[in-house]
């Protein structure tokens, strides 16, 4: 892959824990990945797999009782773990931006769009209000909102869901951040709007050179959008590599099962392939390989922690990876 390109984001052995009455929950456990300039990484997993928590950890938005317990997060070489809250706040919205899942909820209902966009600019730049408004208008135009000047003085309820998500994207792009974290931003939208927004995000990232982490549970989205994929299961990364490597030659049985259960890949008239059992929470996951009690290939050795094997920038955490000859 683009290992020659310098990574914008480098996450090493990240651990995020939550202290609950039932014990310490490792929401993110030993997660490592990196994203380069202009690159899009899909972070895939089921609900509760820790993918959103990984995003929040990078943003420094983990609230107590949660905390980043270990590991390193580097943005352009600068360590973010342990950074003073005020310094972290300066980075948020400026060098790292986040786009959230629900476009209906992500804008403040009582403030006009221009107010919300201008405060994002003014929080980080010493520019006049007029200049801030111009930047907001340009950002709206960039994400394809017609008549941006008029739209600036509208309220969120006057926008459709797709339009609101475009506004949220425009806000994220305002300060031309190095890294944008998208937490399932198109899940709540209908398919045509979703495709438009995916396409636009891809173009915008390529143009601006921002790195993108796209958190999703939808493999189809990843296939069309991302350059690299990281698959999470119960707080751990189980496989990562380029989109082609992971989706066409999945090594980890979980990735394989995930791909097999995408409806369009199943022949008509046959029951959908399913993964047996329930996705465990980080509290109930078994020791050793966390997927072992649902895995068809599991053996006794899986009760110990599996090693991470790598080949050609493609790595997986499994004792019994799937190779072509096994299929």
């Amino acid at each position, binding site marked *: 892959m683009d290992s020659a390109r310098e990574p914008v984001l480098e996450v090493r052995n990240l651990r995020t824990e939550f202290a609950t009455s039932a014990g310490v929950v490792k929401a993110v456990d030993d997660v490592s990945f990196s994203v380069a300039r202009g690159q899009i990484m899909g972070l895939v997993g089921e609900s509760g797999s820790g993918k959103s928590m990984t995003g929040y950890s990078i943003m420094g938005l983990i609230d107590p009782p949660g905390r980043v317990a270990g590991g390193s997060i580097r943005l352009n070489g600068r360590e973010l773990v342990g950074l003073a809250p005020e310094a972290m*706040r300066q980075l948020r*919205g*400026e060098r790292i931006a986040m786009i959230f899942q629900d476009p209906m909820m992500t*804008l*403040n209902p009582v403030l006009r769009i221009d107010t919300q966009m201008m405060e994002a600019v003014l*929080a980080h730049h010493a520019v006049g209000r007029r200049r801030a408004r111009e930047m907001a208008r340009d950002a709206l135009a960039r994400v394809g909102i017609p*008549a941006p000047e008029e739209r600036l003085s*509208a309220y969120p*309820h006057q926008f*459709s869901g797709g339009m609101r998500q475009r506004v949220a994207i425009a806000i994220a792009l305002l300060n031309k951040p190095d890294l944008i974290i998208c937490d399932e931003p198109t899940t709540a939208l209908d398919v045509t709007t979703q495709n438009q927004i995916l396409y636009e995000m891809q173009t915008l990232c390529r143009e601006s050179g921002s790195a993108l982490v796209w958190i999703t549970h939808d493999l189809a989205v990843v296939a069309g959008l991302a350059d690299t994929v990281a698959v999470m299961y119960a707080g751990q990364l189980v496989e990562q590599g380029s989109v082609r490597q992971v989706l066409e030659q999945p090594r980890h049985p979980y990735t394989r099962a995930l791909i097999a259960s995408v409806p369009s890949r199943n022949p008509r008239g046959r029951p959908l392939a399913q993964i047996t059992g329930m996705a465990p929470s980080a509290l109930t996951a078994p020791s050793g390989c966390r997927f072992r009690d649902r895995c068809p290939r599991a053996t006794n050795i899986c009760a110990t922690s599996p090693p991470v094997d790598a080949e050609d920038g493609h790595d997986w955490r499994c004792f019994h990876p799937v190779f072509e000859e096994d299929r």
Partner: protein
Amino acid sequence: MTVATSDTPLARFLHAYFSSRIAVIATLVLLLLTLAAICAPLIAPQNPYDLTKLDIMDSRLEPGKVSSDGKLVYLMGTDEQGRDMLSAILYGLRISIAVGFASTAAALAIGLALGMVAGYAGGRIESLIMRVADIQLSFPPILIALVLLALSGPGVGKIIIALIAVQWAYYARTARSAALVERGKEYMEAAAGLGLSPLRIVLRHLLPNCLPPLIVIAALQVASAISLEATLSFLGLGLPVTEPSLGLLISNGFQYLLSGTYWISFYPGLALLLTVAAINLVADQLRDVLNPRLQGI
């Protein structure tokens, strides 16, 4: 999709608010009463506090009687000192409404600030503020006000302080619960994600979204503050006799009520009823309009 610049939250609110005829009437009545109270020195036929203007010969005249010097028609009769009841009511309304609004505004400001701090900060600060509010709310309001006034003596400033002490906990509780609800919403997270300062997040994003329930409570509390003040004055613990509020006027006429001289208590009572009812109707409509469950956003 067209963008109507007039379609602001305020415009939508006003449209919804004035769609009810009762609300329009109640608002008009309240405005009229407030206006009459503010303009009392200009429109009252007599200055009821100026004892030189009172004629003891006009004592306890029936409504509609002419004064002994023939200059004045007592539309609502006179009290035992020959004071024009209409003038006394206008001046009394002035004090009652001023006390009601001032104490509510101050209690709202205090309760809102404490509640928002509790809701946003959490932890020990929250526990401390909310336990004090709980203790406060476990006593009946009239008891707290009575104790405070018994200790401090009567006076406009003192009764306002007593009313603030009685009311702030309602706002603190509501503000905290609203802040807790709003804090969990995604736009708060998004605001944090933009790197805005905590102060700005609280004032610009959290506060405006917490206001609707507080506005409703404040509107209802104005009415209850006015009636509580009237109660305290009636009991002789509220305002001094030199500044009679509606409660004191009712109390003055109380002893004559059964002897047929009904108007000394009746008309101030009517004015009080009208004020409290109008405020309650306005508050009801506010609640209906601002209730998120009845809103189709």
